[in-house]
């Protein structure tokens, strides 16, 4: 029976010097990019889901007060009328300060206190059976409240399509990065075998058979790819931790809302790179041996 321990000593597989180190760096960077695009996809997927849910589960009603009542009173009547509609979980009249906060991103530093702000009622709808804009408007009319419900359904589909687009684009980025990494692994495996042709020939003449040489190449190239894959995934893990632990500190945190368990997606990556390298090493060494057997 073959004894792998006799073969895997570093002395039978020349170290490779600068070429090997450069290959490890390239593979680490490629792994990092692939892992980052994977995290971006997971984050974008969650963000798109959150946005779509928010759009379909929320609505806003704009209330216009009558001449004989205050804005706050009109908003309270509107909220009461809307809360009784089937498919509405909650209807809350917004305070002026909340309305100002909503407008602040659009109007900047303008003096909002002097502006006649609309009275708004925020609605939280039943996710399973949300109330329609028609039934909500009818409820306002029946209660004698002059108001309009913003019909999200008019642009909900466009919004969902945009969310799906973001998700698909990040998935495409993952696939492209993974394909480029796989190509880098295959090319570097082939190069590693060619660079060690003299050593492989020495071992072959010393009695190493095809399975022994194949095992040797698979072991060393697989191990290198696992190391580079782990390094790349490790760096991506650090970036993911920063996003997951401080999600509200920047735009990235809002666009890619990661949570800690998302980082588990990175765990198999070193195994993936190692497996790819083992297959690539097997094919490369078989090609080389084929040439030798053919007298090449």
């Amino acid at each position, binding site marked *: *029976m*073959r*004894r792998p321990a*006799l*073969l895997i*000593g570093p*002395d*039978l597989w*020349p170290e490779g010097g600068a070429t090997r180190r450069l290959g490890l760096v390239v593979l680490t960077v490629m792994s990092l990019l692939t892992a980052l695009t994977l995290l971006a996809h997971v984050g974008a997927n969650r963000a798109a889901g959150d946005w779509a849910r928010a759009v379909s589960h929320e609505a806003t009603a704009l209330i216009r007060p009558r001449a004989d009542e205050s804005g706050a009173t009109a908003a309270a009547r509107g909220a009461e009328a809307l809360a009784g509609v089937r498919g509405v979980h909650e209807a809350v009249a917004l305070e002026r300060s909340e309305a100002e906060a909503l407008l602040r991103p659009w109007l900047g530093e303008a003096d909002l206190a002097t502006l006649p702000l609309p009275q708004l009622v925020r609605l939280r709808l039943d996710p399973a059976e949300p109330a329609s804009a028609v039934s909500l408007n009818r409820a306002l009319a029946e209660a004698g409240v002059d108001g309009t419900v913003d019909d999200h359904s008019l642009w909900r589909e466009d919004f969902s399509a945009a969310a799906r687009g973001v998700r698909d684009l990040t998935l495409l980025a993952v696939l492209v990065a993974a394909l480029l990494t796989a190509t880098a692994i295959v090319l570097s495996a082939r190069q590693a075998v060619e660079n060690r042709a*003299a*050593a492989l*020939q*020495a*071992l*072959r*003449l*010393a*009695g*190493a*058979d095809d*399975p*022994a040489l194949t095992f040797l190449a698979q072991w060393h190239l697989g191990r290198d790819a696992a190391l580079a894959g782990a390094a790349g995934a490790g760096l991506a893990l650090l970036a993911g931790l920063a996003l997951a632990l401080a999600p509200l500190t920047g735009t990235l945190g809002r666009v890619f809302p990661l949570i800690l368990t998302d980082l588990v997606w990175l765990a198999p990556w070193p195994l993936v790179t190692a497996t790819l390298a083992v297959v690539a090493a097997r094919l490369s060494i078989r090609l080389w041996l084929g040439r*030798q*057997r*053919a*007298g090449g």
Partner: protein
Amino acid sequence: MTRTIAASDLSRPTDGLRGEAGWPVRLRGVTFGHAGHPDLLRGIDLTVTTGSFNFLTGRSGAGKSLLIGMMAGLVRPDAGQVVLFGQDRAQLRGREARVMRRRIGLIAQDDPLLAHLSVADSLAVTLRVTGEDPRGREADLAAMLDFVGLSDMADRTAGTLSRAERRLVALARAMMTGPELILADEPLAGLDAASAKRMLGLLRTLNRQGATVVMTRDGDGPGAEARKGDRRLHLEAGRLVEPERTR
């Protein structure tokens, strides 16, 4: 299980088939070519008998190294059959192929050694790659180095050796598994007269102890190196011709 060998006990024919069926090498209709030289070998038939000393000659590029490679199982013929010790080489797989390889000692032309290894480690490589643990075989290693006269160089790095020394290490390495058939491709090429005489003397010693030897020699004949009883095989235009035995 390891088999302990000593310098005085090298290359004795051991188990395996005896007689015609178990001759070390039988080539039947072996043909080989490539794009640049489609008729390099044309229907070679050859039987190498047990215990014989064979000179395989031919001009450079005639296909001598190729034929040695086929006998060692390293090169696959386009057509024909290579039978080693009664077994079709093309049919051997896994353990059987490894066992067969251990019965053959190969000294290739300009035999490459792993330059970073010591001489002793270079010998141990043969054991390792054929699945045998070199630990416990230190005495055999020492015996081999003593046999080729390199006992004091065991710790030298292979990359620092002269061509003649490298050739001797290659011979010692080839002997580590106690082979019954020794294939030496141009073992004397590039050696000075004294080194060539020493190398040939070692091959003769192994042959006297029972090993079958096939060695190649560039040119039309073995010249002064041939002795009475040696067999001469000559490759010419893809064919093997056999002049009369050396008298």
